């Protein structure tokens, strides 16, 4: 059968074809009769008529085409008319019951609004377009150590670059901060040193000027971000070619990158302290990105000094998986031929994962939470519709008896729900728009992508789609249920309960049970997150964080001059600060815990063979007096002293974790260790208490402390222990610093409590939001249970009255209603607790100090919801107990 015939058969409507045949046959017969009457023989008449008529099949198909098109148009017009009628009818009906409409629209607005708000965030953060051509071909290269990604040393990175064939281009990146002087107040600015091919690899175009290119980069060039250009230079159009002073050295501005060039800090493990760079400078010797410690040092030979991040563009046709496999095998191969690579592996991370990987899971968890809220909202509205429908049952049955088809009535009822849900979606959009402000105020810094989120066409489409889906979801059940009635049933229902209303009641029971189950799942999840967050806030970080102020200082000017004077300078600053009234103690460290820098190192223990896998420890460089100021106890030995200078024998302090790991049960003081890339043995002079350097959620790790007096840095962070609110003392501190050096930028002023809060901002964000969605779910469930029980008591008034007239006590009625509510709640809670582990499994990486199946959280949720169910049913139950038999039975 050819295609045309098939199509014709599909749309062929028997009655149209048959009608045409009959009409044409009649025509032929009449013509034949006429011919006979004119005297032709029957056979001749017939032939003549046939001849005259022509080919009947041609006529037939022409006419059928016309009729079918007309029928289609009629149907379409009819549907449109029906639809308009349904909408009008729905609006009229909803206006007649304003209370119901308001509750339903509000419920849906909460559900849909929450979904829209979260989707608008996902839309920008996870699905948004990246400001680079072919952005999804961009990948980031990391070392791996014990499966954890970490930065790479320049030598190893160069080898990877030459051995891996999957990359079209490639650029190294380091993060360094710069001190901008010479114009206004000195300021410390986060920046980045990059290989000359950086901008070429990304395919990024500047706003003005021309950035440096692969192989041609003036070492003194600098590229500014639009933000910095506007903030510091008033968007000066003649900026290109101007010279600015960074870290005491002149640099020429060659370009400004536009605001849409979104470039975050590239980190292996996202942390709250990261902010994206505001300027870019070319690499140092060998086109290697400059290290933070010494801008001019030739780093080309270093393999184990891991400070480089790297972005690469895949060659056309190479898949991500192929490239990752190639990088992994090259990484392993290199580690075999270079022992100093410490057996590390190498891996790739896609750009979306690198940029948004840290927030992806929290966002998906939130999306799940709001989906649950919406499910409850749907169940509630469906239940409300059923209750409302019971009142209209007779009306609907009558309409069916008068000829409306069941499908017609279902369509009308569903239209009504869609009108409701679209109204709810409109209100929800307003809520989402308004709520995104409070969402932003809670936003952790590394979720900064949220600030870009907004309501665009995709979000609107999503909301509309949800509205229609939701309208169908909560409208279809009641519609089918209500349209089932036959007229006789409904009319027979003269005030007593009919089979129809009993069926409705069963459906509502089911909906309420389901609603409770979903609320349980959501509440278990939020209980886990809140308990996890509470546990995090109670973690002992090992530091006394109260009344502790921190700020950063970068020494500018000629390095050679300062190097000798740095320690002296820090010393005198500490002395001046200690003299400020209200200051109890002052300390300084290159690497501040919780939100500050973090260094790591490999080390060796004297007298022991070199282990197969290198010993790793955190590496902290601090001034004497630091431990006292931080409230870190010295468990054994002594603190650093000013006399421990470069001329004195090298010494270190270790923390308890390191001491326990290397010398369990022994005193490590007097033993010697050395860095695995540095030949000098250093004597351990003391053991200090453990701290959680990387934040409350990360357990203490081994730490090596070296003194600034033996290893100085051009930047340092100060900690000031104050007697009262640190910010009260801040002006005096600032004056003390300026009195020593007016060009000294003092940046990153924060209390340690704020650092901790920042480190906890993501768990706080997530637990706050999920808990509020959980609260929303429970309130909706209360409304659902209450509405259902109240309706059921009204429905059963007569039955209750009769029972009471026959001697049942009020208490019996009370327990009957309460018992029913608790029975439904018990089913819902068991169902919810059974499903919950599946949902909470997704939280496993986001929880601290609690398992996703924590029995306490599960039990508490079950009990809480049982109590909620009982409370919600209390008012209807009391009403049942107050029924006056005489007043009711009389009807």
């Amino acid at each position, binding site marked *: 059968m050819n295609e045309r015939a098939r199509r014709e058969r599909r749309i062929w409507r028997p009655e149209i074809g048959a009608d045409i045949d009959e009409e044409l046959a009649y025509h032929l017969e009449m013509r034949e009769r006429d011919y006979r009457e004119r005297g032709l023989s029957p056979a001749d008449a017939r032939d003549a008529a046939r001849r*005259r008529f022509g080919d009947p099949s041609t006529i037939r198909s022409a*006419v059928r085409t016309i009729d079918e098109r007309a029928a289609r148009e009629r149907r379409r017009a009819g549907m449109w008319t029906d639809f308009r009628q349904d909408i009008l009818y729905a609006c009229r009906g909803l206006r007649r019951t304003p209370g119901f409409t308001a509750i339903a629209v509000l419920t849906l607005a909460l559900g849909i609004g929450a979904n829209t708000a979260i989707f608008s965030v996902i839309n920008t953060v996870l699905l948004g377009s990246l400001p680079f051509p072919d952005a999804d071909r961009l990948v980031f290269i990391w070392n791996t150590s014990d499966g954890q990604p970490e930065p790479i040393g320049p030598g190893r990175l160069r080898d990877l670059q030459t051995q891996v064939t999957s990359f079209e281009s490639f650029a190294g990146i380091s993060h360094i901060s710069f001190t901008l002087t010479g114009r206004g107040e000195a300021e410390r600015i986060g920046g980045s040193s990059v290989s000359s091919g950086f901008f070429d690899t990304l395919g990024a175009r500047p706003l003005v000027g021309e950035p440096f290119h692969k192989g041609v980069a003036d070492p003194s060039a600098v590229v500014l971000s639009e933000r910095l250009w506007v903030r510091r230079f008033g968007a000066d159009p003649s900026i290109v070619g101007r010279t600015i002073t960074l870290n005491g050295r002149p640099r020429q501005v060659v370009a400004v990158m536009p605001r849409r060039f979104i470039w975050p800090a590239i980190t292996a493990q996202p942390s709250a302290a990261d902010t994206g760079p505001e300027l870019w400078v070319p690499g140092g010797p060998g086109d290697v990105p400059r290290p933070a410690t010494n801008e001019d040092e030739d780093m080309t030979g270093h393999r184990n000094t891991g400070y480089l991040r790297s972005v690469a563009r895949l060659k056309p046709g190479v898949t991500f998986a192929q490239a990752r496999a190639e990088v992994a095998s090259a990484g392993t191969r290199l580690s075999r031929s270079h022992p100093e690579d410490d057996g590390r592996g190498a891996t790739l991370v896609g750009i979306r994962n690198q940029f948004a990987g840290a927030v992806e899971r929290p966002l998906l968890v939130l999306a799940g939470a709001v989906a649950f809220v919406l499910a409850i909202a749907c169940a509630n509205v469906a239940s409300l519709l059923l209750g409302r429908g019971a009142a209209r049952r007779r009306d609907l049955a009558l309409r069916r008896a008068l000829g409306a088809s069941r499908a017609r009535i279902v369509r009308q009822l569903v239209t009504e729900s869609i009108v409701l849900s679209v109204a709810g979606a409109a209100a929800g959009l307003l809520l989402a728009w308004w709520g995104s402000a409070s969402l932003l105020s809670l936003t952790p810094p590394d979720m900064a992508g949220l600030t870009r989120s907004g309501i665009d066409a995709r979000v609107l489409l999503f909301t509309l789609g949800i509205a229609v889906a939701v309208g169908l979801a909560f409208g279809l059940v009641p519609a089918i249920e209500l349209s089932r009635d036959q007229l006789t049933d409904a009319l027979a229902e003269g005030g007593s309960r009919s089979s129809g209303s009993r069926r409705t009641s069963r459906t509502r029971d089911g909906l309420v049970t389901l609603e409770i189950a979903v609320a349980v799942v959501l509440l278990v999840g939020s209980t886990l997150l809140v308990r996890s967050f509470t546990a995090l806030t109670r973690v002992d970080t090992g530091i006394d964080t109260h009344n502790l102020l921190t700020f950063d200082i970068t020494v500018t000017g000629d390095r050679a001059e300062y190097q000798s004077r740095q320690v002296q300078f820090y010393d005198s600053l500490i002395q001046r600060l200690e003299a400020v009234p209200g200051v109890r103690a002052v300390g300084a460290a290159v690497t501040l815990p919780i939100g500050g820098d973090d260094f790591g190192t490999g080390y060796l223990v004297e007298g022991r063979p070199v282990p197969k896998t290198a010993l790793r420890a955190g590496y902290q460089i601090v001034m004497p007096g630091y431990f006292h100021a931080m409230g870190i106890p010295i468990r054994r030995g002594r603190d650093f002293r000013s006399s421990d200078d470069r001329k004195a024998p090298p010494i270190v302090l270790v923390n308890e974790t390191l001491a326990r790991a290397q010398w369990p049960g022994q005193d490590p003081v007097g033993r010697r260790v050395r860095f695995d890339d540095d030949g000098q043995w250093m004597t351990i002079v003391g053991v200090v208490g453990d701290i959680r350097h990387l934040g409350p959620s990360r357990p203490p790790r081994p730490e090596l402390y070296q003194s600034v007096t033996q290893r100085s840095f051009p930047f340092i962070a100060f900690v000031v222990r104050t007697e009262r609110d640190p910010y009260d003392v801040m002006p005096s501190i600032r004056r003390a610093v300026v009195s020593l050096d007016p060009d000294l930028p003092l940046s990153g002023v924060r209390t340690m409590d704020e650092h901790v809060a920042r480190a906890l901002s993501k768990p706080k964000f997530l637990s706050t939001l999920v808990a509020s969605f959980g609260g929303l779910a429970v309130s909706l469930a209360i409304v659902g249970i209450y509405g259902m029980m109240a309706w059921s008591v009204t429905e059963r008034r007569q039955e209750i009255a009769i029972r009471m007239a026959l001697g049942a006590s009020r208490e019996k009625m009370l327990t009957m209603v309460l018992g029913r509510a608790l029975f439904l709640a018990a089913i819902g809670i068991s169902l919810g607790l059974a499903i919950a582990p599946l949902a909470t499994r997704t939280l496993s990486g986001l929880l601290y100090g609690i398992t996703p199946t924590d029995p306490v959280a599960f039990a508490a949720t079950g009990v809480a919801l049982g109590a909620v169910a009982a409370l919600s049913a209390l008012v209807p139950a009391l009403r049942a107990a107050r029924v006056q038999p005489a007043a009711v039975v009389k009807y």
Partner: protein
Amino acid sequence: MHDRTTVDLLQGTLAALILKSLSWGPLHGYGIARWIEQITEDELLVEEGSLYPALHRLQARGLVTSEWTLSETNRRVRCYTLTEHGRQQLRAELSRWERFSEVVTRALQSRRPKTA
């Protein structure tokens, strides 16, 4: 057989004739064909291949409606009725036709213009 003119002279002519034929009351398809043949004394030959599509098209445009009736021989017959819309259309067709034929007649009967 003498020469006959088929009704495809002008588009719309057949439609106008059908509407006219129905202006006195409902007719079935064959009745319409016969009326046209009789009124034009068989000068115009209505081809069924044009008549029925035209009729159904008029129906789709809402100018005529049809319903099934029973003939005297107890057969189902589809009868067409002019709608109000169809009646208006007929009037419009008539006045347009009059104007048209007047113009064409005048043009065809005109004399050769004198040249200067």
